[in-house]
């Protein structure tokens, strides 16, 4: 053995476990407002991720047990499951997870070496390939015209079968961001849009509470020093300032900055996706640049792009810039500051 002889926890596995724990409040809120389908999605994604992770580790001749237990595959699965429509068909979930684990993670060298956030790669592949399935979100239970019981939901996910007389439209809806985009296209005034039932006080009905739960989980991670403040602060501040500026200039076409923060994937991205250490910069200044860039792109894609939410593409685009950001934000070393 060599010095230092001492080591301090947490290990990689413990860090991942805390991140998973921090997602629990959001999952609970999700179930409360949208029903338990998301749990099936998460379970299916988890099983797929772990199985493929094991296969890939075997193929790459890596020790399976320590890597499988590091929790990173599980985290990728959860983040992907929470990003796609909760009642998506099983093959959608499996395909997305497979892309995330096999291609985005292992073909790029596995834990620590992948340049792109695996969950976001999975998401991007799905939304490009299966735009229809990817935009059929469950409507919040409180405003849906009809409910599907849990068994029927399973039936839809696995056999694409709906009970007699049930209409897909009756329990799905477009997301608040999506709705905003379409309605603005139809020249509907902002105030009228915001009074539609999918919108809550700040963000989407139900969705805003899930966002709040992500925020709570993120604050826990900050308190536990699992993540640093730089990324979430820069991301949230950038979205707030940019969307706030547009909102002030042209309130008829731009939702309030609070809305931008409380809808879509803003909060999960700020605390759980952009904070992935592997695919982000390591220097403090680099983190600020990276997260501001992602915030800016998110807003731009939401406002001008063809996709309902810009988070996934914003993250992937910023992932590409990480080596450059790191190289240009090296801090001065001890004794060599200007």
């Amino acid at each position, binding site marked *: *053995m*060599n*010095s*230092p*002889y*001492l*080591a*301090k*926890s*947490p*290990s*990689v596995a*413990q*860090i991942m476990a805390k991140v998973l724990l921090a997602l629990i409040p959001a999952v609970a809120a999700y179930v409360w407002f949208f029903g338990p389908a998301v749990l099936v999605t998460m379970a299916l994604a988890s099983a797929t991720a772990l199985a493929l992770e094991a296969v890939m580790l075997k193929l790459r001749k890596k*020790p399976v047990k*320590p*890597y499988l237990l*590091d929790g*990173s595959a599980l985290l990728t699965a959860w983040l992907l499951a929470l990003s796609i429509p909760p009642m998506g068909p099983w093959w959608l979930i499996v395909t997305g997870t497979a892309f995330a684990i096999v291609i985005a993670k292992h073909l790029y060298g*596995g*834990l*620590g*070496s992948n340049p792109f956030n695996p969950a976001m790669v999975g998401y991007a592949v799905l939304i490009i390939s299966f735009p229809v399935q990817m935009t059929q979100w469950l409507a919040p239970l409180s405003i849906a015209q009809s409910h599907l019981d849990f068994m029927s939901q399973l039936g839809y996910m696995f056999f694409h079968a709906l009970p007699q007389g049930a209409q897909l439209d009756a329990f799905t809806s477009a997301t608040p961001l999506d709705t905003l985009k379409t309605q603005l296209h139809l020249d509907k005034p902002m105030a009228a849009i915001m009074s539609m039932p999918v919108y809550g006080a700040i963000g989407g009905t139900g969705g805003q509470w899930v966002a709040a739960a992500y925020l709570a989980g993120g604050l826990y991670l900050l308190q536990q020093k699992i993540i*640093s403040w730089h990324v979430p602060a820069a991301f949230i501040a950038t979205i707030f300032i940019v969307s706030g500026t547009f909102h002030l200039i042209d309130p008829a076409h731009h939702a309030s900055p609070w809305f931008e923060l409380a809808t879509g994937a803003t909060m999960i991205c700020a605390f759980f996706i952009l904070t992935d*250490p*592997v695919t*982000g910069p*390591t*220097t403090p200044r680099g983190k600020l640049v990276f997260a501001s860039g992602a915030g800016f792109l998110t807003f731009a894609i939401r406002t001008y792009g063809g996709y309902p939410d810009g988070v996934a593409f914003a993250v992937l685009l910023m992932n590409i810039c990480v080596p450059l950001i*790191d190289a240009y934000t*090296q*801090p*001065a*070393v*001890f*004794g*060599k*500051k200007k």
Partner: protein
Amino acid sequence: MRALHRFNGGVHPPEHKGESTLRPIQQPPLPEKLVIPLHQHIGNSAKPLVEAGDTVLKGQMIGKAEGYVSGAIHAPTSGKILSVGHEAVPHPSGLKDLCIVLAPDGLESWTDLQPIDHLNMDPSTLRNRLRDAGVVGLGGAVFPSFIKLNPGAGKRIRTLVLNGAECEPYITCDDMLMRERAREIIEGAAIMRHMLHAEEVVIGIEDNKPQAISAMREAAGQSMEVVAVPTIYPGGGAKQLIRVLTGIEVPAGERSTDLGVQCFNVATAASVYRAIRHGEPVLSRIVTVTGNVKNPGNFEALIGTPMDHLVDQAGPLEGSDGAIMGGPMMGFDLPSTAVPVVKATNCIIVKSDALFPTKPQPMPCIRCARCAESCPAELQPQELYWFAKAGNFGKAQEYALFDCIECGCCTYVCPSHIPLVQFYRYAKSEIWAQEREKKAADLARIRHDLRQERIEREKREKAERLAQKSAQAKTAEHSQPEQK
């Protein structure tokens, strides 16, 4: 009150200092033999002055300082020289080195000591005395002190810093020395201040040592400032302590004297005092013996005392498995405890699996930057690791590999349990090896070129001589008219 500064990062490993501070410093019985290495300091080995069969007195010089950067070695007690030869020494490599083996006669008969009154002496005489007394940095670096007490013409030392921080876990030798011999330290500091013409003396002690702080405050009176500094590893690194106390950052590769500061360990100050005021060379040092032992404590050990002699005094417990010299953050595995105590031996930690469990298998770096956050040198350890691992030493140097002080903070916090420091040590030694090779190659090339040149010249000269000869022959043959 002095405004304190802070440095980046640092860690708080469990201290484990209480165990070894329960009893006063102990005097172990005289061992049967002392093995005294001739290379106990940075620089050249001392040159042996004795042979097998000689009898020596306590304090007699038995190894002479060789060249400028070196230190003298003395007989720690009176007795007979058994041999001068290669013996096992405490070094991570496990290699043997030249040692003088002394069988004590138990009489403790001293050689003549010549105390000096430092106030009437010029600094260069005092420096020579320290060199001949073998005074070196006892904090672990063992750099010859007389060199550091020579700031160079025209350099002004504003602050003399005395390092009593002792930030590494387990080690308490400086703590006990300060508690029990504060006056010697303060007197030593006064001598050093005189030699450096320093304006002020500041003594930094971590605030987890309240007894040492009050003992030192009492001894210092109004003459020097004793400052309680926050307990954080590596706050006792010379650069970190200078930063905390003065705000000055000494860049890697620069001498702190150029920035008006000089820093010495408290134990070094005490040995300066003994060397000057009592004429006594460095014959012993305080060693903490702790870890998996029944009675952890501090011992005033003669240089050359076999370490197992000390470990036996402390009583090794069941499950002991090897030992560390130094602290758990920067120390190293001893090849065995049969090696002698040297001037650098501040602590011996008897290991056990319970105290130092084997670390889990390293995982890949997840770029979490915890290492960078903990790095007191403000480096990017994850980048250095990457470059060192890939053998990209040029890039590693560009990312300031040689500013790394090998404190081990990065490795301590790494969630992937990557032995980062080991990679840096490896990269540094590879770079040094390459540089040596390059120098050797350059030398060889120069030699080769010179030789080629000589051969060429000789050939040319020979050819010229031949040409001349044949020309002369021709002139002789032919008639004059061709030449004007």
